[in-house]
């Protein structure tokens, strides 16, 4: 071997060793008190770090309700007046049956899906309606919990008389939309699309609930203009979202409700958008037939953590190394070094591309490793390894297209389990291709 070739091979092997050290051991800042690893950590799914466990049970609270002498509900008793009290359960016992429990589960699943919760596990007891959800614990978790906990009765009422004008039976769908004003601020809206009857009703309301000007005579006997505003209040579970009159007749069956103020920063916009998503998810999915209460809300640490990723990688590499050495003897050591370099680089890339590694992702690492193993095996099996690299690379690309299609489509799926598998497999292929062009070809050309 010529000196230049030997130098090239040595350099490439040293780079592989460096990648392996960075990937498996990391770089530590000795000067720092905490001796932090300067290499980025993995982003992992709930199975590898911890999960929020929220247990919802059918609310069995019984409230004491006060009625005045006319039979109206009152909040507090006043002296000198007669009242009657009654024990009333939060949930009507007639609504508590299997059918409604199943309906509630479906609605909650719809809300989770609408809010694009990436990773969750739902347990359901159809006998008593108890639902337990395990999900990722992040900044969105509390929003999600508030969305699933609400009963979600959507109503549009007359602001004065409190008469119900429209309810969820008129709604076709709901979504979040944004509008950027001329001043550059963005507003998040809930766009409620009504069905055929709802569209008609909305048009009628938009003609009635408007601002008008009436002539009235004041105390001094002078006629003057007075603005009269008839308002519609939009409510979810008796909580007012907005109270407004219509500026123009709404004929297209869409009602846009602004959420929050005009956002000038991303954080503000994100907050309003999340609130709008919660409203939209509730309006879209409909009302749960009864009320749930939180029985447990725990963060549970899992027994396995991100360390499982390098452990699995080392286990797979150990098997592959043994196979290479048994088959190729001394040449097998070089094949193993190349394979170790590939897996190390893949793990490093996964850290820096922020791929959320779940159990599915770990399996994709194993699959990518096997595919690269097969490539190196084919190259080393051939006596003319250098020629084999070129031929096998073309073959590799041809055979990769379908699985690349699969991995790319999986990358666009919001669910973490599928997304993690797709992303890891995608990077597995990209890294394998580039790695083999640079390292495998580079080493075999100069060996």
């Amino acid at each position, binding site marked *: 071997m010529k000196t230049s070739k030997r130098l090239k091979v040595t350099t490439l092997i040293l780079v592989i060793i460096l990648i392996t050290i960075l990937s498996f051991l990391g770089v530590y800042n000795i000067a720092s008190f905490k001796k932090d690893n300067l290499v980025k950590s993995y982003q992992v799914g709930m199975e590898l770090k911890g999960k929020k466990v929220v247990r919802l049970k059918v609310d069995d609270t019984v409230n004491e309700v006060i009625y005045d002498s006319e039979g109206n509900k009152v909040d507090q008793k006043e002296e000198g007046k007669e009242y009657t009290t009654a024990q009333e359960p939060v949930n009507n016992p007639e609504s508590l049956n299997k059918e409604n429990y199943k309906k509630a589960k479906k609605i909650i699943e719809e809300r989770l899906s609408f809010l694009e919760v990436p990773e969750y596990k739902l347990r359901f007891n159809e006998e008593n309606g108890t639902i337990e959800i395990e999900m990722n614990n992040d900044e969105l978790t509390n929003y999600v919990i508030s969305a699933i906990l609400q009963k979600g009765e959507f109503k549009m009422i007359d602001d004065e008389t409190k008469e119900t004008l429209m309810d969820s039976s008129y709604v076709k769908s709901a979504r979040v939309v944004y509008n950027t004003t001329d001043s550059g601020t963005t507003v998040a809206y809930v766009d409620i699309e009504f069905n055929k009857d709802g569209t008609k009703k909305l048009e009628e309301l938009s003609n009635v609930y408007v601002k008008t000007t009436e002539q009235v005579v004041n105390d001094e006997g002078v006629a003057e203009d007075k603005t009269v505003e008839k308002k519609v209040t939009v409510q979810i579970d008796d909580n007012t979202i907005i109270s407004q009159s219509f500026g123009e007749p709404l004929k297209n069956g869409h009602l846009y409700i602004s959420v929050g103020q005009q956002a000038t920063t991303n954080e503000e916009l994100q907050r309003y958008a999340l609130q709008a998503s919660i409203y939209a998810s509730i309006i879209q999915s409909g009302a749960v037939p009864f009320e749930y209460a939180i029985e447990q809300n725990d963060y549970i640490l899992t027994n396995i953590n991100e360390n499982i990723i390098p452990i699995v990688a080392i286990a797979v590499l150990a098997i592959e190394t043994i196979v290479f050495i048994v088959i190729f003897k001394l040449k097998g050591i070089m094949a193993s070094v190349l394979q170790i370099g590939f897996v190390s680089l893949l793990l490093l890339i996964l850290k820096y591309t922020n791929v959320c590694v779940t159990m599915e992702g770990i399996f994709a690492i194993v699959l990518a490793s096997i595919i690269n193993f097969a490539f190196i095996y084919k190259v080393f099996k051939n006596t003319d390894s250098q020629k084999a690299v070129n031929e096998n690379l073309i073959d590799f690309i041809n055979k990769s297209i379908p*699985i690349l299609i699969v991995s790319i489509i999986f990358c666009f799926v919001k669910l973490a389990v599928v997304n993690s598998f797709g992303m890891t497999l995608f990077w597995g292929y990209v890294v394998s291709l580039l790695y083999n062009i640079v390292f495998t070809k580079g080493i075999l050309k100069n060996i």
Partner: protein
Amino acid sequence: MTKAKKIGLLVSIVLIIIGAIIFVSIGFNYDLSYGAVKRIRVPMKNDFSLQDYKTIAKEIYGNAEVETISTFREGVSIKVKDTSDEQLDTLITKINEKYGYEYKREDIQVTEIPKVEVLSIIRQAIIPVIITLLVVLVYMIIRYKKLGILYVVLNLLVPAIITPLLVLSIYLICRIPVTNVLLPILLTVYAGSIVYSTKQCEDKK
């Protein structure tokens, strides 16, 4: 199709049918993390070793999943298939002995946890899998049109559908407990079947 492949296909179909019968009659075998279990919630001070709890739980229940509640170690969650009053009393006694606490039965909360349906786990991946299968099918029909549409269709769909079903059947027949590796295995097997089908078509081209 070679004789070995025919036999393999036949055996697979038989296993899938047996699996389907077991699924309808008995269903899957669930482990502690996916099955209907009981969770014993023990409140703790920040002075315990999870390993101690694992040992105690193993002594009493044999199979138990012990996890820490909250990053501030507020308690321990012990998942077991079932628990009797006697077992709970033993658990409290052992905890009190180990840590010098004076816990009583009312300090420990036992809740029933329903199972996670296997179908709900699989359903998450079904639509993406169908979409990928259709796109890959179109690609392969165009790329390998010389091999004949029927060959390409069968070569892709048979392994892609049969292998995941076979895995589920093996889970059912061998009563392998359903854990969090089921979906990863199914996805890996599916991706592997795509790699296999492509290889078959490329080699025959």
